[in-house]
């Protein structure tokens, strides 16, 4: 399977930046995938699945992050991540990914239709 690094540019477009809720959603989302994902901002590189590390990036509105992923489902992981960012971590998106509080987490994420 493809083990090369996949990458994708992410733009932070919500006003509060990658805040606690956002970082939590990212971590939960990535647990559904096998890929190892890292986020890069300038000289800093952190594990995207660790909310403390992601928060410490201090990614603010308007800033760009680079997501790098390794593993069989890397492209899918990046795609999902990209959508999360594009939709500004809206509740609706989170719900579609089954990331909202209280919902069972062991169901595979269904890509939203339309």
């Amino acid at each position: 399977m493809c083990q090369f690094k996949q990458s994708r540019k992410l733009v932070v477009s919500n006003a509060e930046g990658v805040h606690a809720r956002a970082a939590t959603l990212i971590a939960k989302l990535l647990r559904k995938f096998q890929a190892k994902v890292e986020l890069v901002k300038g000289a800093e590189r952190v594990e995207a699945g660790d909310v403390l590390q992601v928060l410490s990036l201090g990614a603010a509105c308007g800033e760009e992050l680079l997501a790098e992923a390794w593993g069989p489902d890397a492209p899918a992981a990046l795609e999902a991540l990209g959508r999360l960012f594009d939709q500004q971590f809206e509740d609706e998106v989170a719900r579609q990914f089954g990331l909202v509080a209280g919902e069972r987490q062991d169901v595979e994420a269904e890509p939203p239709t339309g």
Partner: protein
Amino acid sequence: MKQLRGIAVSPGVAIGEALVMDTEGFRIPRRFVARDAVESERERFRAAIGAAGREIEENRDLVSRELGEKYGAIFEAHLEILRHSRLREDVEEMITQRHYSPEYAVSRTLRRYAQVFRNLRSHYLSERAADIFDIEKRLLRHLLGRRREGLAQLTSPVLVLAHDLMPSEAANLDRRFVRGIVTEVGGPGSHTAIVAEALEIPAVLGTGPFLTEVSGGETVIIDGDQGLVVLHPDEETLARYQHEAEEHRCLAARLEQLRDLPAETKEGERIKLLANIEFPEEVEHCLARGADGVGLYRTEFLYLGAKTEPDEEVHYQAYCQVVRTMGGRPVVIRTFDLGADKVPHLPQPEDQRNPFLGLRSIRLALRNVPMFRTQLRAILRASTLGQVKILFPLISTLLELRQAKLVLADVMEDLEEHGVEFDRQIEVGIMVEVPSAVMMIDRFVEECDFLSIGTNDLTQYTLAVDRSNKDVIPLYNPTDPAVLKLIAMTVEAARRRPIPVNLCGQMSGNPAYTMLLLGLGLRQLSVPPAAIPEIKRVCRSVRVADCRQVAERAMAMENARDIELFLRGELRRHVPEFGA
């Protein structure tokens, strides 16, 4: 490594483990665990994570139900941090590899992150530091269980770091184990400062916020000479301070040798060195240092350390202890000198805008005569055991003094009627600390048996400077020529009468001022016990004639700064050991 600047209120250097008091009074009990306890400590940590996690889930569900999911989201984040971030790994590694206690490891790890967050430019993100502290608190609560140890149950030497200490906490510090104090607020003259001096431990106050940057158990250096605090000291700094602490010890040992020698100038003129004390327990220090008596027993802590007004027996026991221990040496007991705000069992005054100029001290005592009488009764009863004198504080007019003496006379009559013994000839004096008293000093000396110059407050009132106000502290100078003039006037008036006069403010304990004070004519100084050896050393190294010259030159100068520099120079000349 981080260095903080604060106000030096008690001299010396302390190096040791921090005991950090947060707003809930939490502290980390210990830093390391035994090797064979590592496994069980790790288990304990995992259990705490589990319990904390369940608790957060409950909170999340509750809040989500009541207010909606969006509000429950923050708990999701906490849960995420708790269960899925590196927190767990990092802490477990600290326990396993470095044998840190789970409490210390948790605190250290989380505070490091909190620091990172605080430094982020985004305002929102930097506020997330609060979340980190919240998680820390929760975990610590689960790790420590119900055992919230306050300052009472100490078992090893610590340096206490807190936002502030309540007067009752300061009063009840365990002197066996507290080796230094740092508080974010406060200044000289605060109860914390007074207690630190009494305990003879280094203290730095008013550093501003810093508590979140240090964890309990970490090494901290307190430099009570320079007013510095060092967090996470590097090797070099640690070595430097250890060296300094060693030098302090050597100097102290040398001065110790002076203990049984009299405080005599080179011409053989005897200077009486008395001690200022706050607690009865300090008399041991007094004797150990060779004090000639107690020049000022500040009775405030009888009121501060208690929840209700101390009754006559409480006063009596304390005074007895001091008088008995001092043998036949004089003990000057100063009556109540507090404001109502520090004494919960008194009605709070409505107007507290200018506490230093308000209803406090002798004024408050004269308005609460039963309380005043209780103290006077106890002092009189204790006067049969030795040489006791009464000192009235903050006297500003002759009328005030006469009123106070009337109450005293009344109490004496009362005791006589009931056949209770006391010293009928007991000497009565006033604290000279209000400028009006100095202006009328010729009249006052006719109605007092002795005078005690309180330069702390005298300087405040004369220069109109609040010495607890950080903004104007540079203006507070006891060597201001105006203050020196007032001291000179008082000493002269006492000399003419003659009645004894001593100086009991902080000035008296500073060796740089000794020659000046002797030169102005003072032959009695009341100082913190720890300062006695130093002042004695100066006395024994100088001649009165030289002191007079120093005083003359100082009095001719125009500003405090020049006078300070001059006096330090003179100290260096006459006592090279104290140069710096």
